[in-house]
């Protein structure tokens, strides 16, 4: 096991580098997952806007609109003084001003006159409040048509017909994507970057100058040398994977351990390991210059992660990109990861889908390893 021990000794010399990269990538991974969680497009939350409210009508419906908007926004009653209103808008004391004219009911509900509003130019909150006012006015018109009085219509709109929804929260995530799903989403980047850097450095030490000749002239067969090298890479990969898993448990604790997909997250990341190892081996064989290594590793890891749904969720990627990404192993990792996150209780067809994605990753790993060994033999 001399070759294996040699790899381990050189790995030991690189331990500072490994820790440094682990810390950097862990930090980046956690930061990116936090920012990605905030940018998620699936969840909505009501925005509160400061609205200046000028009521020249004082009727039941006008009061009803004030109350309706007040449920979400902060209402600031104001006098109809043009200068004062403009000043408040200019200094951003309010973002939106709505004027209720005298005879509101007659002019705007029975007639077709539009409410006078003033808003900040280009502000999305303006459109947002517009929609709510339109919703109120349309509802009021509907209630009038049904024979409601102003008071009754205002009361009915305030109560609102709320549909009763019963949510089955099987994953206990309250319908949200759990944080650990993001953590596992970024694992390929961590594995690819760290393994490619470290193994690349080790392999470049073995390919430097006349060292390969000295190894070739030794009584240890090339096959044995390759096997011991693979074993050493495997040990390094397993250790890194365990650190990743422990990192996940450290960050998410019981939430992760008790989730229905935990075992599948483990298995999926474990199948990503041979993919990362074989890619690292190929990179190490192709790149004997340590200076070039950094560029190659960055291009490979970042490129693959951008194309395959690590940094940008698969849902957002275009069909063309997704079609191209299917020829890369990380895509299948992310596909399985998304499925596990979506269905925390994994059964039947979902289970088959996840196993298939993991199987494809293993086929990729075997293919890349074969290419790496062929290249290694050709270079020898």
């Amino acid at each position: 096991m001399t070759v294996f021990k040699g790899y381990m000794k050189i790995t030991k010399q690189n331990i500072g580098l490994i820790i440094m990269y682990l810390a950097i990538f862990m930090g980046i991974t956690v930061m990116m997952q936090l920012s990605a969680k905030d940018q998620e497009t699936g969840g909505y939350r009501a925005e509160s806007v400061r609205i200046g409210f000028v009521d020249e009508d004082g009727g039941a419906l006008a009061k009803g609109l004030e109350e309706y908007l007040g449920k979400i926004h902060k209402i600031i009653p104001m006098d109809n003084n043009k200068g004062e209103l403009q000043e408040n808008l200019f200094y951003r004391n309010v973002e939106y001003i709505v004027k209720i004219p005298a005879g509101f009911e007659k002019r705007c509900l029975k007639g077709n006159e539009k409410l006078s509003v003033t808003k900040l130019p280009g502000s999305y909150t303006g459109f947002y409040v517009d929609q709510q006012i339109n919703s109120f006015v349309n509802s009021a018109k509907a209630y009038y048509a049904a024979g409601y009085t102003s008071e009754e219509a205002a009361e009915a709109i305030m109560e609102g017909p709320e549909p009763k929804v019963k949510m089955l929260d099987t994953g206990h995530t309250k319908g949200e994507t759990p944080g650990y799903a993001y953590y596992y989403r970024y694992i390929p980047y961590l594995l690819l970057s760290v393994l490619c850097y470290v193994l690349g450095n080790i392999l470049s030490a073995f390919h430097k100058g006349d060292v390969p000749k000295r190894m070739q002239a030794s009584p240890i067969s090339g096959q044995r040398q390759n096997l011991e090298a693979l074993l050493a890479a495997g040990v390094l990969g397993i250790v890194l994977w365990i650190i990743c898993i422990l990192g996940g448990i450290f960050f998410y604790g019981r939430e992760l351990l008790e989730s229905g997909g935990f075992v599948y997250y483990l298995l999926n990341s474990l199948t990503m390991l041979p993919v990362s190892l074989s890619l690292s081996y190929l990179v190490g064989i192709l790149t004997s210059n340590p200076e070039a290594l950094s560029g190659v590793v960055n291009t490979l890891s970042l490129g693959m992660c951008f194309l395959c749904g690590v940094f940008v969720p698969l849902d957002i990627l275009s069909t063309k990109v997704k079609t191209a990404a299917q020829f890369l192993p990380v895509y299948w990792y992310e596909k399985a990861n998304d499925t596990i996150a979506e269905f925390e209780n994994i059964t039947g067809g979902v289970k088959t889908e996840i196993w298939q994605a993991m199987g494809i990753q293993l086929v990729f790993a075997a293919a890349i390893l074969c290419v790496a060994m062929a290249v290694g033999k050709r270079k020898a």
Partner: protein
Amino acid sequence: MIQIENLVKRYGELLALDHLNLEIEEGEIFGLLGPNGSGKTTAINCMLALLKYDKGTVRIFGEEMSPDNYKVKQQIGIVLQNVAVFDELTVYENIDYFCGLYVKDKKERKKLVDEAIHFAGLEEYTKMRPKKLSGGLLRRLNIACGIAHKPRLIIMDEPTVAVDPQSRNRILEGIKELNRQGSTVIYTSHYMEEVEQICTRIAVIDHGRSVAVGTKEELKSMIKTGETITVESVALSDGQIAAVGALPHVFDVKYKEQVLKVRCTRGKHNLMRILSYLQEEEISFGRVFSELPTLNDVFLEITGKELRD
């Protein structure tokens, strides 16, 4: 011990080895002498089965050499032209690693590594990494890595390139010591002084061929030159140069930049005859040298060019 027969190696159009034949006996320090590009390193790589050759056979210890002949490889130590060590390991770890490829027993290996360190004079540097060693020390580490397992055959490919004279002498003395301890050494170099100093037998290689083989005395006796006489003289006429060329035993005269070079066959009083002629002609002269033939003269006469070209 080693028989190389009709070895042919081509790199595309270039014929690197042209039916090379060599026979090396056990216990020799066998020198492969030739200018850069003459085929020495290619011959070594073919011997070690690091390169596939097109034709011929290489037999070592009576067995055909092949990439998977690990029994033969076990008994060979190599010191390559470029330093082949790991920058990430210390001096001790490097020697231990390369010795470990041959010797599995930890105790025995430790003893061998300590001996190699002592042999190379690296006792003070065992914990240092190669990048901190000087060129000479690095070469000594390279040698220690190649010979630590006490091989029966040591192949050294230009181990003293870019080494200071002090380290070079230590390396050369070390090679003689290894030979005294029982190892057969094949030593390639384009420095004729080194080869003359340590080798018991020499093969002169040119264009991938062995053009002459023998001891240094045998090689020198193969050529016409017995003595080269050099005289510093300010002015010589063409007639006077021709007269010197006509003296007995003289077969070549050159006069360039006020230096007269006269090559003579073996014979007594060659120097006296030339000096007497200069005195008779009242030609003033400065320093006078008489040199016995060198391997460079051997190479020059056989190939028509200098070794240092």
